[in-house]
Protein backbone atom coordinates (compact mmCIF):
# COMPACT_ATOMS: atom_id res chain seq x y z
CA UNK A 1 0.00 0.00 0.00
CA UNK A 2 1.71 3.18 -1.11
CA UNK A 3 1.56 6.50 0.70
CA UNK A 4 2.84 8.63 -2.15
CA UNK A 5 2.67 7.98 -5.86
CA UNK A 6 4.51 10.10 -8.39
CA UNK A 7 3.19 9.40 -11.88
CA UNK A 8 4.94 10.48 -15.08
CA UNK A 9 5.85 13.83 -13.68
CA UNK A 10 7.43 16.38 -16.03
CA UNK A 11 9.13 19.72 -15.41
CA UNK A 12 10.65 22.04 -17.99
CA UNK A 13 12.78 25.12 -17.35
CA UNK A 14 12.76 27.02 -20.60
CA UNK A 15 14.23 24.56 -23.08
CA UNK A 16 15.64 22.23 -20.45
CA UNK A 17 13.69 19.15 -19.55
CA UNK A 18 14.68 18.90 -15.88
CA UNK A 19 12.37 16.05 -14.94
CA UNK A 20 11.32 13.69 -17.70
CA UNK A 21 8.30 11.58 -16.93
CA UNK A 22 9.44 10.18 -13.61
CA UNK A 23 7.26 7.70 -11.71
CA UNK A 24 7.77 5.93 -8.41
CA UNK A 25 5.75 5.07 -5.40
CA UNK A 26 6.72 5.31 -1.76
CA UNK A 27 5.27 2.59 0.48
CA UNK A 28 3.75 3.59 3.80
CA UNK A 29 6.25 3.42 6.65
CA UNK A 30 9.31 3.05 4.45
CA UNK A 31 12.60 4.92 4.29
CA UNK A 32 12.87 5.65 0.62
CA UNK A 33 15.91 7.13 -1.11
CA UNK A 34 16.22 9.23 -4.24
CA UNK A 35 19.75 9.23 -5.59
CA UNK A 36 21.62 10.22 -8.69
CA UNK A 37 24.48 12.40 -9.86
CA UNK A 38 24.44 16.18 -9.41
CA UNK A 39 21.95 17.87 -11.66
CA UNK A 40 19.91 14.71 -12.13
CA UNK A 41 16.74 16.54 -11.05
CA UNK A 42 16.30 15.06 -7.58
CA UNK A 43 15.57 18.32 -5.79
CA UNK A 44 13.29 19.35 -8.62
CA UNK A 45 11.25 16.20 -8.02
CA UNK A 46 10.99 17.18 -4.35
CA UNK A 47 9.92 20.67 -5.29
CA UNK A 48 7.25 19.20 -7.55
CA UNK A 49 5.94 17.00 -4.75
CA UNK A 50 5.82 19.85 -2.23
CA UNK A 51 4.24 22.29 -4.65
CA UNK A 52 7.16 24.73 -4.82
CA UNK A 53 7.12 24.20 -8.56
CA UNK A 54 4.10 23.46 -10.69
CA UNK A 55 4.64 20.41 -12.93
CA UNK A 56 4.26 20.58 -16.73
CA UNK A 57 2.66 17.16 -16.70
CA UNK A 58 1.98 14.10 -14.59
CA UNK A 59 0.51 13.87 -11.13
CA UNK A 60 1.33 13.43 -7.47
CA UNK A 61 -1.02 11.25 -5.42
CA UNK A 62 -0.74 11.38 -1.64
CA UNK A 63 -2.89 9.12 0.52
CA UNK A 64 -5.06 8.44 -2.53
CA UNK A 65 -5.65 12.16 -3.09
CA UNK A 66 -4.38 14.06 -6.09
CA UNK A 67 -2.32 16.94 -4.72
CA UNK A 68 -0.71 17.97 -8.02
CA UNK A 69 -0.12 21.70 -8.30
CA UNK A 70 -1.63 22.51 -4.92
CA UNK A 71 -0.01 25.34 -2.98
CA UNK A 72 2.78 24.30 -0.66
CA UNK A 73 0.98 25.17 2.56
CA UNK A 74 -1.93 22.88 1.66
CA UNK A 75 0.46 20.06 0.94
CA UNK A 76 2.12 20.56 4.32
CA UNK A 77 -1.30 20.55 5.94
CA UNK A 78 -2.07 17.32 4.08
CA UNK A 79 0.90 15.72 5.80
CA UNK A 80 4.08 16.22 3.76
CA UNK A 81 6.89 18.13 5.48
CA UNK A 82 10.32 18.85 4.12
CA UNK A 83 13.82 20.14 4.73
CA UNK A 84 15.90 22.09 2.25
CA UNK A 85 19.14 21.28 0.47
CA UNK A 86 20.56 24.73 1.23
CA UNK A 87 19.54 25.25 4.82
CA UNK A 88 16.58 27.58 5.08
CA UNK A 89 16.06 28.53 8.67
CA UNK A 90 14.68 31.74 10.10
CA UNK A 91 18.21 32.71 10.95
CA UNK A 92 17.58 35.65 13.26
CA UNK A 93 14.95 33.92 15.31
CA UNK A 94 15.28 31.64 18.30
CA UNK A 95 15.58 27.90 17.72
CA UNK A 96 12.27 27.32 19.47
CA UNK A 97 10.55 29.89 17.25
CA UNK A 98 11.81 28.05 14.18
CA UNK A 99 10.16 24.87 15.41
CA UNK A 100 6.94 26.78 16.13
CA UNK A 101 6.81 27.54 12.40
CA UNK A 102 6.22 23.84 11.89
CA UNK A 103 3.42 23.84 14.46
CA UNK A 104 1.68 26.62 12.56
CA UNK A 105 -0.46 24.49 10.29
CA UNK A 106 -1.85 22.49 13.21
CA UNK A 107 -3.00 25.65 14.99
CA UNK A 108 -6.20 27.53 14.40
CA UNK A 109 -6.36 30.90 16.14
CA UNK A 110 -6.26 33.98 13.97
CA UNK A 111 -5.55 37.68 14.43
CA UNK A 112 -8.83 38.50 16.10
CA UNK A 113 -8.39 35.79 18.72
CA UNK A 114 -4.90 37.09 19.36
CA UNK A 115 -5.99 40.69 19.77
CA UNK A 116 -8.80 39.66 22.10
CA UNK A 117 -6.49 37.26 23.89
CA UNK A 118 -9.07 34.50 23.94
CA UNK A 119 -8.40 31.63 26.38
CA UNK A 120 -8.47 29.13 23.52
CA UNK A 121 -5.69 31.02 21.79
CA UNK A 122 -3.65 31.10 24.98
CA UNK A 123 -4.06 27.38 25.52
CA UNK A 124 -3.15 26.63 21.92
CA UNK A 125 0.05 28.68 22.20
CA UNK A 126 1.03 26.74 25.30
CA UNK A 127 0.40 23.41 23.65
CA UNK A 128 2.37 24.42 20.58
CA UNK A 129 5.25 25.49 22.75
CA UNK A 130 5.43 22.17 24.54
CA UNK A 131 5.06 20.33 21.24
CA UNK A 132 7.97 22.36 19.84
CA UNK A 133 10.10 21.63 22.89
CA UNK A 134 9.32 17.97 22.53
CA UNK A 135 10.49 17.97 18.93
CA UNK A 136 13.67 19.74 19.94
CA UNK A 137 14.27 17.07 22.53
CA UNK A 138 13.60 14.40 19.90
CA UNK A 139 16.36 15.70 17.62
CA UNK A 140 18.64 16.52 20.55
CA UNK A 141 18.51 20.30 20.56
CA UNK A 142 16.56 20.75 23.78
CA UNK A 143 19.19 22.90 25.44
CA UNK A 144 19.59 25.14 22.38
CA UNK A 145 15.99 26.35 22.44
CA UNK A 146 16.74 29.98 23.22
CA UNK A 147 19.76 30.32 20.97
CA UNK A 148 19.41 32.09 17.67
CA UNK A 149 19.20 29.68 14.77
CA UNK A 150 22.15 31.26 12.98
CA UNK A 151 24.41 30.55 15.96
CA UNK A 152 23.96 26.78 15.67
CA UNK A 153 26.57 24.54 14.09
CA UNK A 154 25.92 23.36 10.57
CA UNK A 155 24.96 19.87 11.66
CA UNK A 156 22.63 21.23 14.31
CA UNK A 157 20.98 23.53 11.79
CA UNK A 158 20.14 20.44 9.72
CA UNK A 159 18.65 18.84 12.82
CA UNK A 160 16.65 21.98 13.53
CA UNK A 161 15.16 21.84 10.05
CA UNK A 162 14.13 18.25 10.74
CA UNK A 163 12.56 19.28 14.06
CA UNK A 164 10.66 22.05 12.30
CA UNK A 165 9.39 19.59 9.71
CA UNK A 166 8.39 17.09 12.38
CA UNK A 167 6.47 19.74 14.28
CA UNK A 168 3.89 19.80 11.50
CA UNK A 169 2.91 16.20 12.35
CA UNK A 170 3.65 14.86 8.86
CA UNK A 171 2.78 11.45 7.47
CA UNK A 172 5.71 11.83 5.07
CA UNK A 173 8.92 13.73 5.70
CA UNK A 174 11.15 14.71 2.80
CA UNK A 175 14.81 15.23 3.66
CA UNK A 176 16.97 16.91 1.04
CA UNK A 177 20.61 15.91 1.74
CA UNK A 178 20.19 15.79 5.50
CA UNK A 179 23.83 14.75 6.05
CA UNK A 180 25.28 17.55 3.93
CA UNK A 181 28.03 19.24 5.93
CA UNK A 182 27.85 16.74 8.79
CA UNK A 183 30.87 14.95 10.22
CA UNK A 184 30.98 11.16 10.66
CA UNK A 185 29.71 11.24 14.20
CA UNK A 186 26.82 13.46 13.31
CA UNK A 187 26.01 11.29 10.30
CA UNK A 188 25.86 8.23 12.47
CA UNK A 189 23.50 9.99 14.83
CA UNK A 190 21.42 11.02 11.84
CA UNK A 191 21.03 7.39 10.78
CA UNK A 192 19.60 6.53 14.15
CA UNK A 193 17.41 9.65 14.10
CA UNK A 194 15.95 8.53 10.76
CA UNK A 195 15.22 5.17 12.29
CA UNK A 196 13.47 6.83 15.22
CA UNK A 197 11.41 8.96 12.85
CA UNK A 198 10.39 5.79 11.03
CA UNK A 199 9.54 4.25 14.38
CA UNK A 200 7.07 7.11 14.97
CA UNK A 201 5.22 5.83 11.93
CA UNK A 202 6.42 8.60 9.65
CA UNK A 203 7.45 7.66 6.14
CA UNK A 204 10.81 9.13 5.06
CA UNK A 205 11.81 10.17 1.56
CA UNK A 206 15.36 11.43 1.23
CA UNK A 207 18.01 12.62 -1.19
CA UNK A 208 21.53 11.89 -0.11
CA UNK A 209 24.97 11.81 -1.60
CA UNK A 210 26.56 10.00 1.33
CA UNK A 211 26.21 6.47 0.01
CA UNK A 212 27.11 4.76 3.26
CA UNK A 213 24.14 6.56 4.86
CA UNK A 214 21.87 5.70 1.96
CA UNK A 215 22.80 2.05 2.10
CA UNK A 216 22.34 1.88 5.85
CA UNK A 217 19.15 3.90 6.14
CA UNK A 218 17.08 3.22 3.03
CA UNK A 219 14.96 0.24 2.27
CA UNK A 220 14.28 1.17 -1.31
CA UNK A 221 15.93 3.47 -3.84
CA UNK A 222 15.14 5.28 -7.07
CA UNK A 223 18.02 6.47 -9.26
CA UNK A 224 17.69 9.51 -11.49
CA UNK A 225 19.98 10.65 -14.27
CA UNK A 226 19.37 13.63 -16.56
CA UNK A 227 15.85 13.88 -15.25
CA UNK A 228 14.98 10.26 -16.05
CA UNK A 229 14.51 7.34 -13.77
CA UNK A 230 17.15 4.75 -14.64
CA UNK A 231 16.71 2.23 -11.86
CA UNK A 232 14.64 1.28 -8.85
CA UNK A 233 15.13 -1.37 -6.16
CA UNK A 234 16.69 -2.26 -2.84
CA UNK A 235 20.16 -0.91 -2.04
CA UNK A 236 21.69 -4.27 -2.81
CA UNK A 237 20.03 -4.41 -6.24
CA UNK A 238 20.99 -0.85 -7.07
CA UNK A 239 24.62 -1.46 -6.21
CA UNK A 240 24.78 -4.14 -8.90
CA UNK A 241 22.83 -2.31 -11.56
CA UNK A 242 25.18 -1.62 -14.54
CA UNK A 243 23.26 1.51 -15.62
CA UNK A 244 23.72 3.02 -12.18
CA UNK A 245 27.40 2.15 -12.06
CA UNK A 246 27.93 3.77 -15.42
CA UNK A 247 26.02 6.88 -14.42
CA UNK A 248 28.09 7.33 -11.31
CA UNK A 249 31.43 6.46 -12.93
CA UNK A 250 30.65 8.88 -15.70
CA UNK A 251 30.23 11.63 -13.18
CA UNK A 252 33.44 10.75 -11.30
CA UNK A 253 31.57 10.48 -8.04
CA UNK A 254 33.87 8.82 -5.57
CA UNK A 255 31.27 8.26 -2.92
CA UNK A 256 29.92 5.23 -4.65
Amino acid sequence: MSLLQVENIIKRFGGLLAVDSVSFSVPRGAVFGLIGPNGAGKTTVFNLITGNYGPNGGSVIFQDRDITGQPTHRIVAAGIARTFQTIRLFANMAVIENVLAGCHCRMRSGPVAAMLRLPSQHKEERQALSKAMAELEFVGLFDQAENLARNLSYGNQRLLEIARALASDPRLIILDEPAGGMNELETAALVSLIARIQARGITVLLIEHDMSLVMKACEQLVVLEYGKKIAEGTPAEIKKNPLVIEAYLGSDDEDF
Partner: protein
Amino acid sequence: MKPAAGQIRKTAYAAIILLWMVAPLFIGKYWTDVLNNVAIYAVLGLSLNIILGYGGMFHMGHAAFYAVGAYTTAIVNTAWGVPVLWLMPAAGLAAGLFALVVARPIIHLRGDYLLIVTIGMVEIVRIALINNVFGITGGANGIFGISSPSVFGFQVNSIVAPAHYFYLVTAFLAITIVLFYLLENSRFGRALKFLCSDEVAAQGSGINTAGYKLAAFVIGAVWAGMTGTLYASKMGFISPESFSFWESVVMFMIVILGGSGNIAGVLLGAALIIGLPEIFQGLQQYRLLIFGLALMIMMIFRPQGILPPKPRSYPIDKLEKNEVSF
Protein backbone atom coordinates in the same frame (compact mmCIF):
# COMPACT_ATOMS: atom_id res chain seq x y z
CA MET B 1 22.34 41.45 35.12
CA LYS B 2 19.35 40.71 32.93
CA PRO B 3 16.61 41.41 35.46
CA ALA B 4 18.20 44.76 36.32
CA ALA B 5 18.22 45.80 32.69
CA GLY B 6 14.60 44.73 32.37
CA GLN B 7 13.78 46.71 35.49
CA ILE B 8 15.41 49.82 34.06
CA ARG B 9 13.50 49.44 30.83
CA LYS B 10 10.21 49.04 32.67
CA THR B 11 10.90 52.09 34.78
CA ALA B 12 11.82 54.07 31.69
CA TYR B 13 8.61 53.04 29.93
CA ALA B 14 6.55 53.93 32.99
CA ALA B 15 8.24 57.33 33.19
CA ILE B 16 7.64 58.01 29.49
CA ILE B 17 3.98 57.04 29.77
CA LEU B 18 3.54 59.23 32.83
CA LEU B 19 5.27 62.17 31.14
CA TRP B 20 3.15 61.69 28.04
CA MET B 21 -0.05 61.65 30.05
CA VAL B 22 0.62 64.83 32.01
CA ALA B 23 2.39 66.69 29.21
CA PRO B 24 -0.66 68.69 27.98
CA LEU B 25 -0.97 70.27 31.41
CA PHE B 26 2.37 72.00 30.97
CA ILE B 27 3.23 72.49 27.34
CA GLY B 28 0.47 74.64 25.92
CA LYS B 29 -1.79 74.22 22.93
CA TYR B 30 0.82 74.25 20.23
CA TRP B 31 3.03 71.52 21.60
CA THR B 32 -0.05 69.55 22.62
CA ASP B 33 -1.14 69.67 19.02
CA VAL B 34 2.32 68.52 17.97
CA LEU B 35 1.84 65.55 20.31
CA ASN B 36 -1.59 64.95 18.74
CA ASN B 37 0.12 64.72 15.38
CA VAL B 38 2.79 62.44 16.80
CA ALA B 39 0.08 60.16 18.19
CA ILE B 40 -1.83 60.05 14.90
CA TYR B 41 1.32 59.20 12.99
CA ALA B 42 2.31 56.70 15.64
CA VAL B 43 -0.92 54.79 14.97
CA LEU B 44 -0.35 55.10 11.23
CA GLY B 45 3.23 53.90 11.68
CA LEU B 46 2.08 50.94 13.78
CA SER B 47 -0.48 49.97 11.18
CA LEU B 48 2.11 50.19 8.42
CA ASN B 49 4.51 48.25 10.62
CA ILE B 50 2.26 45.20 10.32
CA ILE B 51 2.76 45.21 6.57
CA LEU B 52 6.25 46.61 6.27
CA GLY B 53 7.85 45.69 9.58
CA TYR B 54 6.51 42.22 10.33
CA GLY B 55 5.49 41.21 6.83
CA GLY B 56 8.55 42.72 5.14
CA MET B 57 6.51 43.98 2.19
CA PHE B 58 7.80 47.19 0.61
CA HIS B 59 4.62 49.19 0.92
CA MET B 60 4.91 52.91 0.19
CA GLY B 61 1.26 53.68 -0.42
CA HIS B 62 -0.25 53.56 3.04
CA ALA B 63 -1.75 57.04 2.69
CA ALA B 64 -4.26 55.50 0.27
CA PHE B 65 -5.91 53.50 3.06
CA TYR B 66 -5.73 56.49 5.39
CA ALA B 67 -7.48 58.54 2.69
CA VAL B 68 -10.23 55.98 2.16
CA GLY B 69 -10.98 56.03 5.88
CA ALA B 70 -10.90 59.81 6.15
CA TYR B 71 -13.11 60.30 3.10
CA THR B 72 -15.59 57.65 4.23
CA THR B 73 -15.91 59.50 7.52
CA ALA B 74 -16.19 62.89 5.84
CA ILE B 75 -18.75 61.84 3.26
CA VAL B 76 -21.05 60.00 5.64
CA ASN B 77 -20.73 62.57 8.40
CA THR B 78 -21.46 65.59 6.21
CA ALA B 79 -24.23 63.88 4.25
CA TRP B 80 -26.18 62.20 7.04
CA GLY B 81 -24.75 63.70 10.19
CA VAL B 82 -23.70 60.38 11.68
CA PRO B 83 -21.43 61.14 14.68
CA VAL B 84 -17.82 60.79 13.61
CA LEU B 85 -16.69 58.30 16.22
CA TRP B 86 -19.45 55.90 15.21
CA LEU B 87 -17.96 56.05 11.77
CA MET B 88 -14.63 54.68 12.88
CA PRO B 89 -15.59 51.04 12.26
CA ALA B 90 -17.12 52.00 8.93
CA ALA B 91 -13.99 53.84 7.91
CA GLY B 92 -11.87 50.88 8.94
CA LEU B 93 -14.13 48.51 7.06
CA ALA B 94 -14.06 50.63 3.91
CA ALA B 95 -10.28 50.85 3.98
CA GLY B 96 -10.02 47.13 4.71
CA LEU B 97 -12.27 46.23 1.78
CA PHE B 98 -10.34 48.56 -0.45
CA ALA B 99 -7.10 46.86 0.61
CA LEU B 100 -8.61 43.45 0.00
CA VAL B 101 -9.52 44.38 -3.56
CA VAL B 102 -6.33 46.19 -4.55
CA ALA B 103 -3.79 44.09 -2.69
CA ARG B 104 -4.95 40.71 -3.97
CA PRO B 105 -3.55 40.99 -7.50
CA ILE B 106 -0.30 42.68 -6.45
CA ILE B 107 0.57 40.69 -3.38
CA HIS B 108 2.90 38.33 -5.23
CA LEU B 109 5.13 41.12 -6.51
CA ARG B 110 8.56 41.21 -5.00
CA GLY B 111 10.47 44.04 -3.33
CA ASP B 112 10.79 47.12 -5.46
CA TYR B 113 8.08 46.08 -7.88
CA LEU B 114 5.63 46.09 -4.99
CA LEU B 115 7.05 49.43 -3.91
CA ILE B 116 6.26 51.18 -7.17
CA VAL B 117 2.86 49.54 -7.44
CA THR B 118 1.88 50.79 -3.99
CA ILE B 119 3.18 54.24 -4.93
CA GLY B 120 1.03 53.99 -8.03
CA MET B 121 -1.94 53.01 -5.88
CA VAL B 122 -1.65 56.07 -3.63
CA GLU B 123 -1.24 58.32 -6.66
CA ILE B 124 -4.29 56.84 -8.36
CA VAL B 125 -6.31 57.40 -5.19
CA ARG B 126 -5.13 61.00 -4.91
CA ILE B 127 -5.92 61.70 -8.56
CA ALA B 128 -9.32 60.07 -8.16
CA LEU B 129 -10.05 62.29 -5.16
CA ILE B 130 -8.98 65.41 -7.05
CA ASN B 131 -11.15 64.46 -10.00
CA ASN B 132 -14.14 64.12 -7.71
CA VAL B 133 -14.66 60.44 -8.38
CA PHE B 134 -18.35 59.41 -8.19
CA GLY B 135 -19.06 63.08 -7.52
CA ILE B 136 -18.71 62.64 -3.78
CA THR B 137 -15.15 63.59 -2.85
CA GLY B 138 -15.43 67.31 -3.45
CA GLY B 139 -12.56 67.38 -5.93
CA ALA B 140 -9.54 69.50 -5.14
CA ASN B 141 -11.54 71.46 -2.56
CA GLY B 142 -12.10 68.39 -0.49
CA ILE B 143 -14.89 68.11 2.04
CA PHE B 144 -15.49 70.56 4.83
CA GLY B 145 -17.78 70.88 7.78
CA ILE B 146 -16.87 67.55 9.37
CA SER B 147 -18.01 67.56 12.97
CA SER B 148 -15.66 67.08 15.87
CA PRO B 149 -15.83 63.88 17.86
CA SER B 150 -18.09 63.60 20.83
CA VAL B 151 -17.44 61.22 23.70
CA PHE B 152 -20.51 60.51 25.86
CA GLY B 153 -21.99 63.79 24.76
CA PHE B 154 -18.79 65.73 25.46
CA GLN B 155 -17.55 67.59 22.40
CA VAL B 156 -13.84 67.04 21.78
CA ASN B 157 -12.78 70.03 19.73
CA SER B 158 -9.14 69.70 18.82
CA ILE B 159 -8.92 73.32 17.77
CA VAL B 160 -10.31 74.95 20.89
CA ALA B 161 -8.86 72.39 23.25
CA PRO B 162 -6.11 70.24 21.78
CA ALA B 163 -5.66 68.67 25.21
CA HIS B 164 -9.11 67.06 25.07
CA TYR B 165 -8.34 65.65 21.67
CA PHE B 166 -4.98 64.55 23.04
CA TYR B 167 -6.61 62.16 25.51
CA LEU B 168 -8.93 60.81 22.83
CA VAL B 169 -6.15 60.06 20.40
CA THR B 170 -3.93 58.78 23.20
CA ALA B 171 -6.64 56.34 24.17
CA PHE B 172 -6.80 55.07 20.62
CA LEU B 173 -3.01 54.85 20.48
CA ALA B 174 -2.94 52.91 23.75
CA ILE B 175 -5.56 50.45 22.51
CA THR B 176 -3.61 50.07 19.28
CA ILE B 177 -0.36 49.40 21.12
CA VAL B 178 -1.93 46.75 23.35
CA LEU B 179 -3.75 45.00 20.50
CA PHE B 180 -0.77 45.07 18.19
CA TYR B 181 1.49 43.83 20.95
CA LEU B 182 -0.81 40.84 21.42
CA LEU B 183 -0.93 40.39 17.66
CA GLU B 184 2.84 40.51 17.35
CA ASN B 185 3.20 37.81 19.97
CA SER B 186 0.72 35.44 18.41
CA ARG B 187 0.56 32.80 15.74
CA PHE B 188 -0.39 35.51 13.28
CA GLY B 189 2.49 37.85 14.10
CA ARG B 190 4.91 34.96 14.09
CA ALA B 191 3.71 33.82 10.66
CA LEU B 192 4.32 37.30 9.26
CA LYS B 193 7.83 37.33 10.67
CA PHE B 194 8.52 33.91 9.17
CA LEU B 195 7.46 34.96 5.72
CA CYS B 196 9.44 38.16 6.08
CA SER B 197 12.54 36.22 7.06
CA ASP B 198 12.32 33.52 4.36
CA GLU B 199 9.23 33.14 2.26
CA VAL B 200 10.13 29.75 0.80
CA ALA B 201 10.91 28.29 4.20
CA ALA B 202 7.68 29.72 5.58
CA GLN B 203 5.69 28.09 2.80
CA GLY B 204 7.59 24.87 3.33
CA SER B 205 6.63 25.01 7.00
CA GLY B 206 2.98 25.13 6.04
CA ILE B 207 2.28 28.85 6.17
CA ASN B 208 -0.13 30.26 3.62
CA THR B 209 2.14 33.15 2.73
CA ALA B 210 -0.15 34.80 0.20
CA GLY B 211 -3.04 34.65 2.64
CA TYR B 212 -1.04 36.14 5.47
CA LYS B 213 0.32 38.90 3.27
CA LEU B 214 -3.20 39.81 2.30
CA ALA B 215 -4.37 39.64 5.91
CA ALA B 216 -1.51 41.94 6.94
CA PHE B 217 -2.53 44.42 4.28
CA VAL B 218 -6.14 44.33 5.40
CA ILE B 219 -5.39 44.75 9.11
CA GLY B 220 -2.94 47.57 8.40
CA ALA B 221 -5.52 49.21 6.14
CA VAL B 222 -8.34 48.88 8.69
CA TRP B 223 -6.25 50.70 11.25
CA ALA B 224 -5.10 53.36 8.83
CA GLY B 225 -8.75 53.85 7.86
CA MET B 226 -9.82 54.30 11.47
CA THR B 227 -7.00 56.79 11.96
CA GLY B 228 -8.42 58.60 8.95
CA THR B 229 -11.58 59.17 11.01
CA LEU B 230 -9.54 60.75 13.78
CA TYR B 231 -7.72 62.97 11.31
CA ALA B 232 -10.87 64.09 9.50
CA SER B 233 -12.59 64.98 12.76
CA LYS B 234 -9.52 66.78 14.03
CA MET B 235 -9.11 69.00 10.99
CA GLY B 236 -12.81 69.56 10.30
CA PHE B 237 -12.09 69.38 6.59
CA ILE B 238 -10.00 67.18 4.32
CA SER B 239 -8.53 67.66 0.89
CA PRO B 240 -6.51 65.44 -1.43
CA GLU B 241 -3.22 67.15 -0.65
CA SER B 242 -3.26 65.59 2.83
CA PHE B 243 -3.00 62.12 1.27
CA SER B 244 -0.21 62.56 -1.19
CA PHE B 245 2.60 60.19 -1.92
CA TRP B 246 4.73 62.23 0.47
CA GLU B 247 2.42 61.27 3.37
CA SER B 248 3.12 57.64 2.54
CA VAL B 249 6.82 58.39 2.52
CA VAL B 250 6.53 59.96 5.97
CA MET B 251 4.86 56.82 7.35
CA PHE B 252 7.47 54.66 5.64
CA MET B 253 10.28 56.67 7.21
CA ILE B 254 8.68 56.44 10.65
CA VAL B 255 8.76 52.65 10.52
CA ILE B 256 12.23 52.24 9.08
CA LEU B 257 13.90 55.00 11.08
CA GLY B 258 12.40 53.90 14.37
CA GLY B 259 13.08 50.23 13.94
CA SER B 260 11.10 48.12 11.56
CA GLY B 261 9.14 45.42 13.36
CA ASN B 262 9.36 46.92 16.83
CA ILE B 263 6.46 48.77 18.44
CA ALA B 264 8.66 50.95 20.67
CA GLY B 265 10.82 51.76 17.67
CA VAL B 266 7.86 52.88 15.57
CA LEU B 267 6.63 55.11 18.40
CA LEU B 268 10.05 56.72 18.65
CA GLY B 269 10.15 57.06 14.87
CA ALA B 270 6.85 58.94 14.89
CA ALA B 271 8.10 61.28 17.60
CA LEU B 272 11.25 62.02 15.60
CA ILE B 273 9.79 62.34 12.11
CA ILE B 274 6.85 64.50 13.20
CA GLY B 275 8.55 66.27 16.10
CA LEU B 276 11.88 67.26 14.55
CA PRO B 277 10.52 69.57 11.84
CA GLU B 278 8.57 71.39 14.56
CA ILE B 279 11.65 71.74 16.75
CA PHE B 280 13.36 73.29 13.74
CA GLN B 281 10.45 75.71 13.09
CA GLY B 282 12.59 78.62 14.20
CA LEU B 283 15.00 77.93 11.36
CA GLN B 284 12.30 78.85 8.85
CA GLN B 285 13.36 77.96 5.33
CA TYR B 286 16.34 75.93 6.58
CA ARG B 287 14.25 73.54 8.61
CA LEU B 288 13.70 70.87 5.99
CA LEU B 289 17.36 70.89 5.05
CA ILE B 290 18.34 70.24 8.65
CA PHE B 291 15.63 67.60 8.93
CA GLY B 292 16.97 65.78 5.87
CA LEU B 293 20.49 65.87 7.26
CA ALA B 294 19.23 64.54 10.59
CA LEU B 295 17.53 61.64 8.79
CA MET B 296 20.73 60.72 6.97
CA ILE B 297 22.86 60.96 10.10
CA MET B 298 20.46 58.88 12.17
CA MET B 299 20.36 56.18 9.50
CA ILE B 300 24.14 56.10 9.24
CA PHE B 301 24.63 55.77 12.97
CA ARG B 302 21.77 53.31 13.51
CA PRO B 303 21.45 51.43 10.22
CA GLN B 304 19.03 48.90 11.74
CA GLY B 305 16.75 51.68 12.91
CA ILE B 306 17.07 53.36 16.27
CA LEU B 307 15.31 50.61 18.21
CA PRO B 308 15.53 47.39 16.21
CA PRO B 309 13.39 44.49 17.43
CA LYS B 310 14.83 42.01 19.88
CA PRO B 311 14.42 38.27 19.36
CA ARG B 312 11.28 37.18 21.08
CA SER B 313 11.65 35.06 24.20
CA TYR B 314 9.30 32.24 25.07
CA PRO B 315 8.30 31.09 28.52
CA ILE B 316 9.86 27.67 28.12
CA ASP B 317 11.13 27.64 31.68
CA LYS B 318 7.53 27.87 32.83
CA LEU B 319 6.54 24.73 30.99
CA GLU B 320 6.17 21.79 33.31
CA LYS B 321 8.34 18.86 32.51
CA ASN B 322 5.39 16.52 32.01
CA GLU B 323 4.00 18.87 29.39
CA VAL B 324 7.07 18.26 27.26
CA SER B 325 5.95 15.13 25.54
CA PHE B 326 4.02 13.99 22.51
